[in-house]
């Protein structure tokens, strides 16, 4: 990503994503062929289309390669501790319900060390958009096994190939009560952008899994070629199926990938549930919390 305008057919054009980035922080730290930047591009485009007031939109990341996303977006942004993006975001959202709060982190951060917070935020239907960039590995620490690593994939801590059963993240999110669940890959930039836009406008716990290549570690160690090769794999082996039962969304090593929007439903958010409960029990003495102008 360059901070300079591109020249297209002799005309200088500003990259439409640039205004959403902290340009004084570029270049970013991600490796060539890494998919995280592509997801950020999609997210920035979703921000342009979502109609939200970006001064009232905050992003929270944990630790790891994807954990650095918060630092590149020109929003109120918080780079928190390993695994704790969701509880920090919970405090931020509950502290000021007018904010739209996005959690943006990786598979290791959100589903291993932060797994407990993930299931509980979905259970509570905390009003957060949670984007998980799943590259099946811990990139920042050099390529260790994560809870999403497919069986057979080689990792530094699984040198003979992973033998642990991985999470099926859409199924996990669905079972815990997320109101929006989708999976896309970095090949599906249009669909991913649309999903992010929908997620930004969804009330409640929305979850998007994005499969993304890690050419430096995961692909290299498993002899899968470079970033482009992995995107070709996504292209060739992905099938869109919005109506699939989430329990059938397990991923196998370099196997078929089902992508789509699997869940889109309504459920009372944590804040609404609290206000409704207190209003019904306490009555007029209770002033609903975080309610401005009779809405939100």
């Amino acid at each position: 990503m360059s901070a300079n305008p591109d020249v297209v057919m002799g005309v200088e054009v500003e990259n439409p994503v640039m205004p959403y980035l902290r340009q004084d922080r570029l270049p970013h730290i991600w490796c060539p062929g890494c998919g995280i930047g592509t997801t950020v591009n999609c997210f920035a485009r979703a921000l342009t289309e979502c109609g939200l007031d970006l001064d009232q939109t905050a992003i929270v990341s944990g630790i790891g390669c994807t954990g650095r996303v918060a630092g590149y977006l020109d929003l109120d942004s918080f780079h928190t501790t390993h695994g704790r993006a969701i509880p920090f975001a919970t405090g931020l959202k509950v502290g000021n319900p007018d904010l739209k709060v996005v959690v943006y982190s990786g598979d290791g951060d959100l589903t291993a060390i932060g797994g407990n917070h993930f299931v509980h935020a979905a259970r509570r239907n905390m009003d957060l958009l949670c984007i998980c960039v799943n590259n099946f590995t811990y990139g920042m620490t050099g390529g260790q096994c994560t809870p999403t690593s497919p069986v057979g994939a080689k990792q530094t801590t699984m040198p003979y190939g992973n033998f642990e059963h991985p999470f099926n993240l859409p199924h996990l999110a669905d079972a815990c009560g997320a109101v929006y669940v989708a999976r896309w890959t970095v090949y599906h930039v249009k669909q991913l952008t649309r999903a992010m836009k929908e997620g930004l406008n969804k009330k409640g716990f929305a979850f998007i899994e994005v499969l993304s290549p890690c050419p430096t570690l995961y692909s290299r160690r498993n002899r899968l070629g470079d970033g482009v090769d992995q995107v070709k794999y996504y292209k060739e082996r992905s099938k869109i199926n919005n109506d699939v039962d989430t329990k059938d969304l397990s991923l196998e090593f370099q196997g078929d990938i089902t992508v789509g929007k699997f869940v889109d439903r309504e459920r009372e958010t944590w804040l609404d549930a609290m206000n409704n409960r207190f209003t019904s029990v306490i009555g007029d003495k209770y002033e609903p919390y975080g309610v401005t102008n009779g809405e939100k």
Partner: protein
Amino acid sequence: MKADPKGVLTGIHFIDGDQAACEGALAAGCRFAAGYPITPSTEVVERFAGRVPLVGGVFIQLEDELASSIAIQGAAWAGKKVMTVTSGPGLSLMMEHVGFAAFTETPCVFVDVQRGGPSTGLPTAPAQADMMQVRWGSHGDYPMIALSPNSPQECFDLMIEAFNLAEEYRVPVFFMMDEVVGHMIERVEIPEASEIEVTERKWTDKKGKDYLPYEADESLVPAMTKAGDGHRIHITGLTHDERGYPVMNASTQDKLLKRLLGKIEINRDKLVDIREDGVEGADVVVVSFGITSRVAGAAVEMARANGVKVGHLRMIITWPFPSKRIKELAQTVKAFIVPELNMGQMVIEVERAVVSDAEVISIPHAGGTVHEPEVILEKIMEAAR
């Protein structure tokens, strides 16, 4: 500024320390608490959960102490005054976020109702054995403040002080209760809101990108903002510059650490809060804090009845440690006696201040109950001989 009357339950109450601590937090303006149940601290959040809906705030019971100790920091960046409440095992889990609060300069109060440890230890019995953990338990060097109340009334009064200090210095503040102080029931007088002074957060008046979140004046404490105010801040637990951006090199680390620790260092004299009773001209001085100060007070009275010139120095603020005063007294005092409900923690600080100017006598106690005053008396009599 004065306290918001909404949170102040003015009147005379007969309540325990845990409940008084909750009322102190509400009076101080705390409008967000997160916690996970743990004996003997749970009554604080139980009361908060019942009271806060009527005051205009939120309590959330989270899945563990890791979540609680970081959720409060999210809420602080949303503009709230915040606390979490726990005891030993929970405090151990919170340690990483103590560092995050100190490094990101997030004002927050950690209430620790101490119980016997290590590990699960004695859940329903007192100790004062987390004193060094709060000072040094999170990795790296970090600034913090700790207060040690010895009664339900002080749980109310000093809790307000704890919140005020957290706002003034933007450091994590530890409220070091113990099982006895938490569960003893006494008279608690809650004044009118107009008589309660609370410190407002030091908000920036700069707009947009003119605001640098970690640019500090000579106070070393930067002005704060909150999410949604249009500053588009970046906050990170990585070593950062004045913009809040990660800059990972030795010079940035050096500059940042020195400023953070400096917030306490340059205010060491201001941050002395001790109660002295007859220390001038005393041969022996008992140094105490928290619940042990009440037992020590009884022992001091008994020693005086025996004709011993004994003083009592009670620390209200335990961190930063009042080294300067102890050092001064060491020039005239024969011996310091340090009873505490641990195997010898704060006594190390007394020794550090005294060096070889006087004798320092530790009266350790493994916890589970308080000292017998006679044990302290015996040491006073020995030292005075």
